[in-house]
């Protein structure tokens, strides 16, 4: 059954190879056939894998592991490339290939005028391959392979418009921070391997005998005694990787910069799928996170702080994609909070709904950017509801979903997380419970902030009157070098560009190839939450997602009803409050005011984290390199070796003096020698 997954992996890989080698020569229709076709095939295979899993009873048997080939055997080091099909990987695969397919379709419209059309789709196919590899690998090593390859895909796609300095700088930053994550993941793998002698996940209940089927890090960890230090180090190192990939504090800096990539990339990689790999990894290896009592609270604390931190930055940003980027960081923090409360399925649930509505938000923003010819600044927008009806309505649905307004998808999943946090706070003892109370408070507060900044964005784009000057003429594709000059030309030719209502009529709704994915995602964002739990209505028999994931993730602690309602009520009140404030301030249209408030400046400048990082980490490292290069390498080692050479040549110069070639000099030397010898014997007696 798991071998079915091989067919999920192969089509996008083939698509990447075909497009990479031949894409330049292929016509557009052929490029799209390959790009869409391979992802569609992948989706169909993922769907059939999912259905075949559903057909297995009882639930605990829903796991299948197939070894594809032996990667390496050396001594006792044995690694196989294997695929694991279980409810978790099936869910992830459906989300990746499903949302991936929609975004591939959308991209045909968004990237239509780009000269790198074929290159774009070949990278996108590569990403789908890498991401499906990441979630379907049956051991940590191939998870790491996928982990590295998605980082590469992200690097290539962020830097897609490679002529833009900002894009290439962002791409490099993203990959370097990803490698920091790889570093953590590798050390975690080494540590696990050292103590357990395997990197396979293992499955099928505790099986403590090495080498037997089903023995792996997840099963062995439960029955092997690891020291308390090791059992804390493993989850923390894993979490370093998660924090880098999922943009958590303090490794989040790359994600806002990653918005330099084309918008469909932001939707697919930096919102819906790749950045959630960290959430997946915590869920997949949750057994390891429970080994130490400190691991999950630390995960929760970082997630909670990130959620709030990013939300405050999102409040002040003017670039619509950056608002969404910070919002993604914040929502990822939410998912980690949910997982830290032991409710892994809540984390995965929020991952799923977030994939729908955040992809929708990005694609909607992309439609706006497309219509405005590349404009991303909110100050140049407004009033677009008249010209972009479909985008307007679908964006509204997404905003309602992310703000947690019932009955949209985000409400259910956010509610699950908050409920789990409050349940955890009331059920655990000791000081940890204050942490969970605090996290719950952070979550509720962030819910309010989320509604506030999302509606600020929504009003800024669609409501009020139009503040811009019509679409920029040069389009959003940044790969032609004449970009800068062209813009000036437009302005000088037309004198001052027209502003306001009349310019609005130059703006058109996106083509159907872009709006159809928007509508489908809007439907998913509306009803996608219904696969969650109805525990709130005291009807716990309906929780299909939780039940499906239970064999892998275990069951979440049951909460009591009044508590859940308290949590729901509080978060709803805060969300509505946020909505209200946004309506009061921005309902009549977004007005940008320079604020001197120091807190505002701090948030607007992203708390200067980038600058601090450069000052504290990068500059000292460069200084070290420069010193080593100048003093040690150039001075001591190289200079030293030249000094030795110099010494020898001086010595030989001195020696050369002796060898004059004149017989009289030699005769003198012989004479002196004879005299000295005679003297020696005379003195000795």
């Amino acid at each position, binding site marked *: 059954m798991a071998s079915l997954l091989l067919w999920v992996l192969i089509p996008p890989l083939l698509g990447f190879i075909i497009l990479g080698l031949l894409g330049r020569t292929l016509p557009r229709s052929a490029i799209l056939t390959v790009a869409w076709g391979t992802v569609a095939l992948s989706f169909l295979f993922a769907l059939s894998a999912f259905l075949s899993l559903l057909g297995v009873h009882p639930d605990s048997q829903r796991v299948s592991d197939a070894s594809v080939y032996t*990667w390496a*055997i050396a001594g006792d080091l044995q690694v196989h490339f294997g695929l694991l099909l279980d409810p978790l990987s099936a869910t992830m695969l459906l989300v990746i290939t499903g949302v991936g397919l929609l975004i591939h379709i959308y991209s045909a419209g968004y990237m239509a005028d780009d000269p790198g059309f074929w290159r774009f789709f070949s990278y996108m196919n590569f990403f789908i391959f890498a991401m499906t590899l990441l979630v379907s690998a049956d051991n940590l090593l191939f998870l790491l*392979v996928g982990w590295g390859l998605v980082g590469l895909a992200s690097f290539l796609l962020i830097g897609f418009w490679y*002529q833009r300095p900002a894009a290439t700088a962002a791409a490099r930053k993203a990959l370097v921070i990803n490698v920091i994550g790889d570093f953590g993941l590798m050390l975690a793998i*080494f540590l696990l391997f050292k103590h357990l002698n395997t990197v396979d996940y293992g499955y099928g209940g505790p099986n403590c005998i090495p080498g037997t089927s089903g023995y792996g890090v997840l099963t062995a960890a439960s029955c092997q005694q690891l020291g308390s230090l090791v059992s804390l180090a493993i989850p923390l190192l894993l979490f370093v990787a998660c924090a880098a990939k999922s943009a958590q504090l303090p490794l989040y800096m790359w994600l806002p910069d990653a918005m330099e990539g084309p918008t469909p990339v932001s939707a697919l990689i930096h919102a819906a799928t790749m950045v959630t790999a960290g959430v997946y990894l915590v869920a997949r290896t949750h057994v390891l996170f429970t080994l130490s009592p400190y691991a999950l609270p630390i995960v929760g604390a970082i997630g909670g702080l990130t959620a709030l931190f990013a939300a405050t930055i999102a409040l002040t940003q003017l670039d619509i994609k950056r608002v969404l980027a910070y919002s993604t960081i914040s929502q990822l923090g939410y998912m980690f909070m949910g997982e830290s409360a032991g409710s892994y399925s809540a984390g995965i649930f929020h991952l799923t709904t977030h994939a729908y509505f955040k992809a929708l938000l990005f694609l909607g923003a992309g439609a706006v950017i497309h219509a405005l010819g590349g404009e991303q600044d909110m100050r140049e927008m407004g009033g677009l509801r008249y010209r972009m009806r479909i985008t307007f309505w679908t964006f509204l649905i997404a905003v309602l979903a992310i703000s947690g307004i019932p009955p949209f998808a985000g409400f259910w999943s956010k509610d699950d997380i908050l409920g789990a946090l409050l349940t955890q706070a009331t059920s655990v003892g000791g000081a940890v419970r204050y942490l969970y109370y605090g996290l719950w408070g952070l979550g509720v507060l962030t819910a309010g902030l989320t509604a506030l900044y999302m509606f600020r964005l929504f009003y800024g784009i669609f409501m009020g009157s139009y503040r811009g000057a019509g679409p920029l003429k040069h389009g959003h594709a940044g790969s032609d070098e004449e970009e800068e000059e062209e813009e000036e030309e437009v302005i000088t030719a037309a004198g001052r560009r027209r502003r306001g209502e009349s310019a609005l009529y130059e703006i058109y709704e996106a083509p159907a190839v872009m709006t159809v994915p928007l509508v489908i995602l809007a439907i998913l964002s509306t009803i996608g939450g219904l696969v969650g739990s109805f525990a709130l209505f005291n009807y716990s028999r309906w929780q299909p997602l939780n039940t499906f994931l239970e064999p892998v993730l275990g069951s979440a602690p049951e909460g009591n009803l009044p508590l859940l309602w308290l949590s729901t009520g509080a978060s709803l009140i805060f969300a509505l409050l946020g909505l209200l404030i946004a309506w009061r301030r921005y309902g009549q249209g977004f007005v940008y005011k320079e604020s001197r408030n120091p807190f505002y400046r701090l948030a607007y400048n992203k708390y200067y984290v980038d600058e601090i990082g450069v000052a504290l980490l990068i500059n000292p490292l460069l200084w070290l390199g420069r010193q*080593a290069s100048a003093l040690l390498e150039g001075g001591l080692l190289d200079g030293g070796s030249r000094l030795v050479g110099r010494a020898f040549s001086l010595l030989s110069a001195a020696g050369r003096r002796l060898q004059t070639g004149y017989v009289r000099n030699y005769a003198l030397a012989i004479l002196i020698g004879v005299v000295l010898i005679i003297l020696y014997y005379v003195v000795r007696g």
Partner: protein
Amino acid sequence: MIFAYDLTWILLLPTLGGVLAMVAPVRLSRWLALAFSAATLALSLWIFLRIAVATGYHFGSVTDPKADPASIDVVQLPWIQFQLGSVTFRIDYYLGVDGLSLPLVILNALLTMLAVIGGWEKPRVKEYMALLLLLEAGVMGVFMALDLLLFFLFWEVELAPMFLLIGIWGSETLKHGMPGRIYSAWKFLLYTFFGSIFMLAGILLVYFQAGQNTASLPVLMQHLLPASTGVTVPLLGVTMGSQLLAFLLVFVAFAVKIPMFPLHTWLPDAHTDAPTEVSVILAGVLLKMGAYGLIRICLGLFPDGLQQFAPLLVVLAVINILYGAAICLVQKDMKRLVAYSSVSHMGVILLGVAAAAMAIHTSNPDVAHFGTAALMGATVQMISHGLITSLLFFCVGVIYDRAHTREIEIFGGVAKRMPLWATLFTFAGLASLGLPGLAGFVAEYMVFTSSYRIWPVPTAIAVFTMILTAAYLLWMLKRVLFGPFNLRWNWLPDASWREAIPLVTLAAFIVLVGVYPGFLLDVIVPALHHLLPVATTALGR
């Protein structure tokens, strides 16, 4: 007859090719060089296939007296033999290939052929081709010699062509008052010679201490030097085990070649001043001579010595890795950057060997088994570093041939004009930074995962260096290939077919080793398995 053995022809084909390329007219000499280098490659592949088919992909070990003769290829003929009083002096013409050396022989043949293609349009092309082929013959000898004195002979043979190649075709940039090519050629020669002297002393020490009247490696491996009984070093007055002493002497030569900190400074100079193809051979094969010697001779003959030295070797390995990367961060010349990245990556081999040496010491069978994995990783790193760094040097060479500069800062957005080249250069950079799924990752993973069991902290530092590696390689790629297009480079043509052949070939091998390393590991494992148990029994005494 000596000519009846195919190993003889592995030496003879490039030598003949070199001579013919020299005497033939210019038009012919390139094709002759290509034909003879291709023939050498074909012959080495044929030996590989013959063994693979005959034994069902079971490669043996030349130092294992019980090895299946079909699984290895050996030739042993008496060469020099004379008696001086009580001392019998004997050197054999003793060559052999097994799972450890055959991949390196093939790598050498492959890279030389690619270098011939790469240097097609050099000035004074006849001499260039001739020297490249003679260099190949010398290096082949090093990888195949099983008699220590013969090994030493080939070790020195390789110096002359390399010295001339750098000294004649190198760059004219002034360095310390003389043309860089002269300076760097001398530096290369002197450093290597410095090491060789110690190696000769070490080999003679082994020869006379063992008292077997032969320098045959397999025989000496049966009669290891005593580890505990000491010799006092004359001038220093230090007493140490004779195995450790012999190890240290021989190791100096290998350390220079690898190159190990602080004996590495010849490398960046040699690389920056050598022409492209020579850099490729230098990084791809010549550095591997040191690593090969470390594994074949030091681990085989001086397991205890190596082990006593291992804790220090780890420190040196980590310094190599970290120091090379730190220097890379501030390099301004592409080739110099790649050269220092070599220093960093060769440190991984040292780490692997050190871990393997420690592993055989322990009575813990669990750790002992991962010695093989560490050594395996070190060996794979030889191959993958050979492939990846060669690709990087070829790529740098392509742009240097056009722009006549390698200054990172003055390029920008070149990917626009040279998409094929840019793709391959990016690929090489990613492979070098250890992207999972490519060759470099396999080796590093195997070394690190094994060495972590013995030295967690040094390994963690080494793994941390990955981040620096990513930083400097991506910085270079970003500055050269991406960013705003510098119109000054508008005339640059993309890589030609001739230039693309080496690039694509190497890239294909890098993917193959990365995705399916099994085919390589299965070749190497038996040779290493034999090497480590010998060492273990030696310690058991």
